[in-house]
């Protein structure tokens, strides 16, 4: 076995190997650590690393631009490995501010390379056009609706009285958590006996559902068990998956077939398994799915509201272009959409948003 540099091999036997490894890994004297992290951060900002691939750096590896690499290493040490500070510097460089380079041929790291947005960027970008405040999406009222949705099957099988009781509990749960806890403590004392039978039944059902691979039922039962105070049951929190929330606020990976996965989010069964490739399902989603359902059919969608507020066709066109493509329309584009919107303002607006969201320009970062 190769010895770790900077660490006495004899020490290894006496200490916790994991702790020793992480200590070695993050020790600023460890020669490769600074190179690796600086290189990866550069790749994140510019799209092409100075050493490619980023996960294959050997003793004799030479960076594409050695002077830049060593500058970045110095910078990384200078900011004391504060990634936020490091990226802030990269993002404010002239190099980053330049228009991106479309082709790798002759590329010399003078500007970012043109890339398609990552799956997460695509999703978040879409959401900012739908939600007035993307960070205000995890509010309580949604949780009630979600809770009802999650126990839909159970609710169906209840009689009127049980149903009303259950509904009241749910409302209390989210409107007054303190009262809910008190209520639950009381009811738990009463129901301990009933509950233990129910827990047994649910556990049994859970086992069967797992065996069938019926993930929907598994999730439902796991949630029911949690409601009964049984925690630590294995199951993924899929309830939040349909939330319109930032990719980073959603369970990762998103389930099979989700927008995020269509656009290349990693399944996380292998390292570095995300991608930015085109495929048919993601385009069908843009053509006939997400854009239509979440944006064009929703007058509450923030882009639609802004368009209504803009009123005049010219202002509407500007709003759509700035909102979707972060630029103003060119003269010819402006003329074209003006003509269309004069003909049929309602349909014209929809057509324009649909078209802009389907452009390569929206998906690729210049």
């Amino acid at each position, binding site marked *: 076995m190769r010895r770790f540099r900077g660490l006495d091999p004899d020490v290894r036997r006496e200490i916790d190997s994991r702790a020793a490894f992480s200590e070695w890994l993050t020790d600023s004297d460890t020669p490769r650590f600074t190179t690796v992290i600086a290189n990866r951060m550069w790749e994140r900002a510019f799209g092409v690393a100075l050493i490619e691939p980023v996960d294959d750096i050997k003793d004799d590896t030479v960076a594409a631009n050695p002077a830049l690499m060593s500058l970045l290493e110095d910078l990384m040490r200078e900011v004391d490995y504060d990634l936020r500070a490091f990226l802030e510097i990269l993002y404010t460089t002239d190099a980053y501010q330049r228009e991106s380079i479309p082709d790798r041929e002759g590329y010399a790291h003078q500007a970012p390379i*043109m890339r398609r947005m990552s799956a997460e960027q695509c999703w978040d970008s879409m959401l900012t056009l739908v939600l007035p405040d993307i960070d205000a999406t995890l509010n309580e009222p949604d949780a009630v609706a979600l809770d009802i949705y999650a126990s839909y099957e159970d609710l169906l099988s209840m009689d009127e009285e049980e149903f009303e009781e259950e509904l009241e509990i749910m409302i209390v749960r989210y409107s007054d958590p303190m009262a809910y806890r008190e209520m639950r403590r009381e009811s738990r004392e009463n129901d301990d006996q009933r509950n233990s039978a129910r827990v047994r039944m649910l556990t049994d059902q859970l086992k069967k559902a797992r065996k069938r*691979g019926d993930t929907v039922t598994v999730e439902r039962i796991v949630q029911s068990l949690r409601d009964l105070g049984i925690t630590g049951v294995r199951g993924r929190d899929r309830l939040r998956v349909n939330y319109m929330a930032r990719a980073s606020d959603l369970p990762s990976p998103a389930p099979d077939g989700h927008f995020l996965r269509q656009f290349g989010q990693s399944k996380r069964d292998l390292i570095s398994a995300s991608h930015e490739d085109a495929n048919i399902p993601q385009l069908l*989603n843009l053509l006939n799915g997400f854009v239509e359902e979440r944006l*064009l059919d929703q007058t509450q969608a923030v882009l639609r509201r802004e368009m209504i507020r803009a009123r005049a066709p010219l202002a509407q066109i500007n709003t759509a272009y700035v909102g979707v493509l972060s630029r103003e329309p060119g003269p010819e584009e402006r003329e074209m959409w003006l003509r269309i919107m004069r003909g049929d303002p309602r349909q014209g607006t929809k057509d324009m948003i649909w*078209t802009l969201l389907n452009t*390569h320009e929206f998906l690729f970062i210049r």
Partner: protein
Amino acid sequence: MTIREHLRRADEPSRRTFVSGLAAGLFGVGTSPLASPLSGALTQDGAVPLRHATAKRVIYLYMSGGMSQLDTFSPKPGAATQGPTEAIQSNADDVRVSEHFPLMARHMDKVCVVESMNSNQGAHAQGQYYMHTSYELRGTIRHPSLGAWLNYMAGPVNETLPGHVAINGGLYNASGGFLESKYMPLPIGSAEDGLQNSARADGVSEGIFDRRMRRLREMNDAFRDRYNTKEVRAYGDMYEQALSLMDSQDLDAFDISKEPESIQEAYGTDPFGKGCLLARRLIEHDVRFVEVVKSGWDTHAENFDQMGELCPPVDRALSALLADLDARGLLEDTMVVLATEFGRTPRINTQRDGRDHYPKAFSCLLAGGGIQGGVKYGKTDAEGHEVTEDIVTVEDFNATIAYGLGLPTEYEMYSPSGRPFRVAHKGIPVKAMFA
């Protein structure tokens, strides 16, 4: 630009964006210098002379993570390495399967168990890539997987559906490699949902849609003229493919809810069972190659407990699939493959009650499409450590599938970078596996 320059440009290593971008870029509709046939180089579909085929299509079931051979289709009852998993007799004299496959035990007469599989890749990404392409994973090129080869060499049967579909797939499963983007598998994330959004949204008439598309094409063409990269061209190409798919008469093939409930029940309600059912519907509509992935086989810990969860859905779906294909007369010319990147150590990792990666000797299955059923091919020693007879390398295994499909394994195709590649690399078909 000369052809050579085109070729050289196309060989830039760009890792993940490589797959779809490259080929699509080279084959702009009708304008590519490569559209005219070059000797041995990329040509139109079906330009390769095939030999007699016993199989026309493939359902490729991929056990991602490395399926334990001892606990599934190659038990060694009595051996110290067997652990608590029991063996049961199947309906084929010489074939026993593990207790987790009671349903498959009644269908082993249709299956050839390849017990002497051997790979040289012990890590998941590398192993999956090798199993799918017969080539080692490199940073500079992406090789096509078998499904892409089949469609490239034999041409499409159904003109409106993609010839290559991957259900529940991951990054290193089915891939179009350096071939044109139309050979890329169509990824289906969830078999239950099928192909979503394939119809125009409510309220969008054909006229509205066509008008929108006209303007969209104008904008995208202008963008491509300015930023003429492989990735951008690939997107333009993929839009056209998506549109032609929307027009297909066979979109119902993607909808498993059209199946009678008894059939859905037989395959199972889990994602793998639904995937297998979708695969059968697709091959019925002349999709040539469908892969269905079942993941979770990386049983380093609690191997024996996990078998109880992993095997039953496969037992149910695979037995249902074989019976269903047989009943429809499709098993005759449809090859069903069950593959995995490597097996698991015969020696039980007692600390964690698991089994670790073991590429040296493991098992895969072949059935239908001319394969002789009810037999085992190859032998390992009493405890399953080494192959003792008739070793089958990953490349041989793929060559055998290719042989059944009538694909010439010695045929050399030149990649856009001018390098020669063969469907199963250096693999030699094992003709003895055919009836």
